[in-house]
């Protein structure tokens, strides 16, 4: 061995690391969807206390005012008014409230039904599983919105009908996700150990399987929430959704359809509100999904 001083000087080597700027940008991107969704929730919950609004009152004098115009009562209609003179800000806030309500109720129904059905089918297997898989196949082949339209059209308009109509297809993705996760969890050794021990099946599902299905289900809740809000708006747009005394973005968009060339703001603002919410819940769902895949149980 020669002592080549230059070549053999001890060295320090650092691994490459991502730039600070890139990391900061990534962490901002993580906050944005949650922050925007939080604004929607706050508007839905507290908005009506701040902005008084009567969805059925009409003020013909103030109809079709553009954004920023002054109304007959002297207040400023920041986002304009609609064809019956109602303030657009109020419509947006009450619409947000409706969307949140319908979204929460429907997702809750879908989650409970889907998780229970998926858990049973995945864990018990056999006929239960075959039956469920066929039902899922059929429902998947059927466009969700068509199914919802058929059901909503058959009954009197109302919140319950809309929730049921949207849930009818919405639970499928929860069931599918839960079934898949359960199938693989079923083969995990702690589940086998519980089976060998003689733990009753309901307890195994509750204690040894269900807790590990949670994380992916939460991610799916975010994704589905956006789709359901969109579905409700669709039904209301078609006039088979919520009754007229409940403000819905879908109805507002439909009402503004006739004035698109003269009073664009009636359809455009609720449209933007709707699109933004759907995109943000989608982003949040993707974030939760990737976090779950990184930190989840292997």
């Amino acid at each position, binding site marked *: *061995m*020669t002592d*080549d001083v230059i*070549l*053999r*000087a*001890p*060295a*320090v*080597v*650092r*691994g*490459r*690391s991502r730039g600070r700027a890139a990391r900061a940008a990534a962490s901002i991107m993580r906050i944005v969807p949650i922050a925007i969704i939080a604004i929607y929730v706050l508007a839905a919950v507290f908005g009506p206390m701040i902005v008084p609004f009567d969805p059925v009152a009409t003020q013909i004098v103030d109809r079709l005012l553009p954004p920023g115009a002054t109304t007959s009562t002297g207040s400023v209609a920041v986002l304009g008014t609609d064809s019956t003179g109602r303030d657009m800000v109020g419509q947006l806030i009450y619409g947000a409230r409706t969307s949140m309500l319908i979204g929460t109720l429907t997702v809750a129904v879908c989650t409970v039904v889907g998780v229970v059905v998926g858990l049973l089918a995945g864990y018990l297997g056999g006929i239960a599983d075959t039956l469920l898989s066929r039902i899922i196949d059929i429902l998947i082949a059927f466009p969700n919105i068509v199914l919802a339209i058929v059901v909503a059209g058959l009954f009197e308009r109302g919140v319950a009908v809309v929730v049921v109509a949207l849930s009818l297809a919405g639970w499928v993705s929860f069931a599918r996700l839960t079934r898949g996760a359960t199938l693989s969890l079923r083969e995990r050794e702690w589940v086998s150990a519980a089976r060998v021990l003689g733990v009753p099946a309901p307890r195994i599902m509750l204690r040894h399987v269900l807790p590990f299905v949670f994380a992916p289900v939460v991610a799916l809740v975010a994704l589905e929430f956006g789709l359901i809000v969109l579905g409700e708006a669709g039904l209301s747009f078609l006039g088979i959704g919520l009754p007229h005394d409940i403000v819905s973005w879908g109805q507002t968009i439909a009402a503004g359809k006739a004035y698109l060339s003269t009073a664009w703001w009636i359809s455009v603002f609720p449209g933007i509100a709707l699109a933004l919410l759907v995109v943000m819940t989608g982003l949040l769902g993707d974030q939760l999904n990737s976090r779950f895949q990184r930190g989840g149980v292997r």
Partner: protein
Amino acid sequence: MTDKLALSVRDLVVSTDADAPVRILDGVSLDVRSGRTTALIGESGSGKSILGSAVMGLLPDTMSAQGEIVFDDRQVLGIPERQRRALRGRWVAMIFQDPLAALNPSQRIGRQVGELLRRGGLRGKALEEGVVRLLARVGVPRPEERAHAFPHQLSGGLRQRAVIAMALSGGPRLLIADEPTTALDVTVQKRILDLLAEMQRDDGIAILFISHDLRVVSHIADDLVVLYAGRVAESGPARSVLSKPLHPYTRALARSVPSVSAASAVSDPIPGTAASPAARPSGCAFHPRCPLAREICRRETPQPREVVPGRVSACHFAEEFLDD
């Protein structure tokens, strides 16, 4: 066989980049001679695989290395990544525990084995012949046919042979084998070990054999380095280390190995579990599990020292083992 050093590692320290850095390897030194095998043995958490990555220049981004890694009189630690890459394959190659992970599932075996040959300028018929020759050399039966197979179509043993063929294709002077037989059945394991020994005899390749299995190591190693919690506990010629360990850890490890050829009861196994570098005990890292531990072992970290010519031990009381 020459005594030329193919790899020399001196005082290698690998630490994590966290706010409270952990020295995963804490001053490790070892040599691998051409045509010889040095085995690096250690239990989980000893840092043995990290040493392999450090030598290959494949440490994760979150770790940094200091010290010397010398290939044939050239310090390679700290040289630019481009030069480092040029050494990989031609100077040093690596095989892993899981051959399936080392192979691209969507490419035929022949293409992967021939990668370095192609980069070396071989084309067409010459390339094909080179691949077949390599596969035949590592004992793959019907190599012309197998060159067209995908990894999943081969058995575990054949896959590991294909990986060895890939490793040999650049004509490396040093082969790092990280647990290359751990995932294989015993009958297959024996054949792979025989193959490695044969390659070494023919080409004079130096092998750094990383393993947790003292039995395997005792069959293939010329020299042995015993790692405990990121530090060298003992090193020296394999036969001599195993027959007369100069460190209580080596001795306990050898006694823990179950024997096939003689009925033996498990007699007093080492208590406790291997210390991790993240929570390394004070003084000698082995002292909480050591039957001989005394006051000084808790206080002072023993430095590896040559106890008898060729035999290094990092035990304060290594001399006492001499007259055992």
